[in-house]
């Protein structure tokens, strides 16, 4: 497993998709900030555009894992005797670390920009840590979904189209499921399991925070964390099982 991870990480630094997605996850929020022209506090600036690094992390994950299929790296690994579960988990760990780096660089750029432009520091350290953990947990759940799709769909282009469509579909479903979640347990469970719903909750909190800094509930933020971790474990377990049985032709 350690050799797999070493090989994966050395490939990660050389992957154009990784650096491209990192660039866009910094550039797009910055461009929107320039259009907007208003400097908010650090809390809003850092977390209001969380869907953007989440989206680009999904793109990076599917492009990275898809290359394994298309270049024959996956076949070579199986031929030398590495188990399928280890390959799957190594890929998941690698893309999760890539996601972490993309988020870190995106947030660091937003933080630097806000401090340089004189934005107010309106968040306590423990709240900053909590929101960061929730975002990263949602990101990990998204990486679990992307790893499942990219590993099971052999064609890289089809996997990319499906993953991007699914990611955008998840964002749209989040908006629709929110209304039904109050009245139906199934809808509530589906809503909470979606990685995009956690990000959407954070954006809702950001909107409240910007207008009224005192309106902030910790309990509402911690609960989604368990759903994200549950989704992460579930999708990883299902993906590893399906990959073991997949006919790689």
């Amino acid at each position, binding site marked *: 497993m350690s050799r797999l991870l070493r090989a994966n990480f050395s490939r990660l630094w050389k992957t154009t998709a990784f650096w491209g997605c990192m660039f*866009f996850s910094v550039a797009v929020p910055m461009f929107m900030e320039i259009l907007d022209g208003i400097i908010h506090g650090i809390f809003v600036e850092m977390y209001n555009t969380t869907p953007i690094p989440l989206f680009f992390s999904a*793109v990076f994950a599917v492009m990275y894992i898809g290359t394994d299929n298309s270049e024959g790296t996956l076949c070579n690994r199986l031929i030398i005797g590495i188990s399928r579960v280890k390959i799957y988990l190594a890929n998941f760990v690698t893309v999760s670390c890539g996601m972490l780096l993309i988020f870190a660089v995106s947030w660091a750029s937003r933080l630097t920009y806000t401090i340089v432009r004189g934005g107010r520091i309106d968040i306590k350290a423990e709240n900053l840590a909590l929101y960061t953990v929730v975002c990263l947990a949602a990101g990990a759940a998204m990486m679990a979904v992307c790893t499942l799709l990219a590993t099971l769909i052999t064609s890289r282009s089809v996997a*990319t189209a499906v993953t991007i469509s699914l990611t955008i579909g998840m964002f749209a479903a989040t908006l629709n499921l929110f209304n039904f979640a109050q009245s139906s347990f199934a809808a509530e469970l589906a809503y909470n399991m979606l990685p995009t719903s956690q990000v959407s909750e954070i954006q809702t909190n950001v909107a409240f925070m910007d207008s009224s800094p005192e309106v902030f509930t910790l309990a509402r933020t911690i609960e989604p964390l368990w759903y994200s971790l549950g989704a992460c474990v579930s999708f990883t377990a299902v993906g590893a099982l399906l990959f073991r049985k997949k006919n790689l032709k």
Partner: protein
Amino acid sequence: MSRLLRANIARLWKSRAFWICFAAAAADGLTRFFSAYCGSRECVERLGGMLVSGGTNVMFIASIFTALYLGTEYSNGTLRNKLILGHKRTSVYFANLVTVLAGTFIYAAAEWLITLAAGMITGGSLGMETEEFLMCAAVYVCSLAALCAVNTLIGIIIASKSCAVVTTLALIFGTIIISVTLMQLLSIPKVAEHLETAETGTVRLAISSEVNPLYIDGTRRQVYTFLNNVLPCGPMCWLENGALPEGGETLPMYSIGVFAVSTAVGVPVFRRKDLK
């Protein structure tokens, strides 16, 4: 050129990506109608607005189809074979552009027909003046054509199918976000309204005498308006509200301009491209 078109259209009918995207467009039309119908039964009285407001979804589906269809030409070696047989690169480019336009308008037609059929069954009507509807339809068609030209440019230049898919989808997603942001900024009113209480105790809406500090005017407004009109999704985002903005009659001209520029750039770039 006619042979190229015949071959492209024949391949189109056999393309799995085309039929999957066709099903998605039809399903989208049905879903949008029933979603609106469940929200309010009176929506069938404004079928015209519903028809023209689904353009961004069609753009999204068309982008996936274009990237997969044109990317297959590179991966299968079809493009190389066409050039070996002596077809000019310009002819190949235009044949692909026409095919992509055909596919996109088939999706738009499928969505419109499904929505119209569902609306007629439930006793709906257009709900708009004919002239207004035709103007909206012209904006809709020209925006789709502009997007097809941009997607063809990207699909022809990028050899990797997956990179083309990512680029076209990211372009659509990004331009929608930018257009929505620009529309929000341009919609900020010039004078702010606020509630005030009169001496008699009644509350009324009053208009401030001072200019709203957030209002965008001057050169910045002109730049934002131009940018929003030029982006492929900009006019479509206006139509999402079911009607055109003030001065919206000029929007088709911007789309035609984008179409012409994209094609004018794409043809020479493709002619010089090293196909390895």
